[in-house]
């Protein structure tokens, strides 16, 4: 028996182009004198073609509209909560580039935002002597110094407010075109606050305020900034304004 035997798997791999060069050459050589071998290889080529022709047309079947819509909805939702999507829209200022790489974060964080806004709004309003209104939705900044800083100070600048430091992070417009600013309030013995305030007309309204965990620290933990990023996505925040754009935008409409 001079003929070499090949098992089915070898011949199938040959038919599929998955054999190594040496074995391929051996099979080819054997096929020259062995019609039976040729038939076996042909059967594997044909069975592949059969399976393909039976099932490949399925790809032309229209995807049900309901399925496409449902998946599109999931994609939209995922984008809305994906901090990296924000990174594509909002070019961050240098101070924000120092943040650790963003990671996925827990959604419950977003659920707690309303309570945080209330607490910080109370702080900001209370600083000017006015009692916290208890209004969850929005709090106007009554503190003249904070409002003045928001009105006039360029992003990337720090402003000293008594024992606190106000860091202006960026200016941008929300989806309605309203001017908004992101800023951080660092206080000596209390936790820092990261906040977004918008100026629909003359006054600054606090839209978001998140208490960071490190009292007196000079940096804001990633968790807080991720919350801010998430919020920026939900209001379709535009890219940060350039220095010139910001200067122009800050000038109060007279």
């Amino acid at each position, binding site marked *: 028996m001079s003929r070499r*035997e090949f*098992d*089915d*798997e070898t011949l*199938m*791999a040959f038919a*599929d182009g*998955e054999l190594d060069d040496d074995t391929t050459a051996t099979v080819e050589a054997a096929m020259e004198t062995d*019609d*039976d*071998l*040729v*038939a*076996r290889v042909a*059967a*594997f080529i*044909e*069975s*592949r073609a*059969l*399976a*393909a*022709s*039976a*099932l*490949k*047309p*399925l*790809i*032309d*079947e229209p*995807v*049900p509209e*309901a*399925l*496409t819509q*449902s*998946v*599109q909805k*999931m*994609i939209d939702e*995922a*984008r809305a909560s*994906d901090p*990296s999507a924000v*990174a*594509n829209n909002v070019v961050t200022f240098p101070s924000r580039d120092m943040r650790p790489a963003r*990671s*996925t974060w827990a959604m419950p964080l977003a659920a707690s935002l309303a309570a945080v806004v209330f607490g910080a709004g109370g702080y900001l309003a209370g600083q000017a002597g006015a009692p916290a209104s208890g209004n969850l939705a929005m709090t106007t900044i009554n503190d003249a110094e904070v409002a003045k800083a928001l009105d006039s100070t360029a992003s990337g600048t720090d402003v000293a407010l008594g024992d606190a430091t106000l860091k202006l992070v960026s200016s941008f417009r929300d989806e309605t075109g309203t001017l908004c600013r992101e800023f951080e309030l660092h206080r000596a013995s209390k936790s820092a606050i990261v906040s977004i305030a918008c100026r629909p007309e003359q006054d600054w309204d606090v839209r978001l305020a998140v208490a960071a965990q490190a009292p007196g620290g000079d940096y804001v933990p990633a968790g807080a900034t991720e919350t801010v990023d998430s919020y920026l996505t939900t209001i379709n925040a535009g890219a940060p304004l350039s220095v010139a754009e910001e200067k122009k935008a800050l000038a109060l409409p007279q």
Partner: protein
Amino acid sequence: MKGDEVQVSDRLIAFLPNLRRFAISLCRSRDLADDLVQAACERALASQDRFEQGTRFDAWMFRILRNLWIDHVRRAKTAGPQQDIDETPDIAGSGGERDAEARLTLKSVAVAIDELPDDQREVLLLVCVEDLSYKEAAEILSIPIGTVMSRLSRARKNLADAAGINSGTDRSPEKGGNK
């Protein structure tokens, strides 16, 4: 650079027809397949951080979908081969231009594919329909390449038998071994 990366969410919609084809042939029911595709997309979006840039997106999605299918089968033990037998002839599609004889052959191939054991059918789908390599199929299925090859060769011999393909003298001990 984040900007160079292609996000999972950008690719899902375009990939839906492929995903659905795989799902239909895997679970042999369009309703079930659509549920499965939806669940796979949900899973993919939730874990898109785990998708490694530069690796094959299709293989990653197939793996997610297939794992969900296995979970489903495990949970509903009756959801296996008995399911939706009535629907199986549909898998051959309805190409109006094909002549009756060709349609008959395709139909019988579709039925033959349908009647394959699950482990043979899924490897057949990945290699012969989705054109993945043995290695990629092995990774999706979490089995050795040798197992991919033995299942695939048995699947194709079963298919060839069903379609009446003459495969010469059979030297395989498992001729017709539909198990």
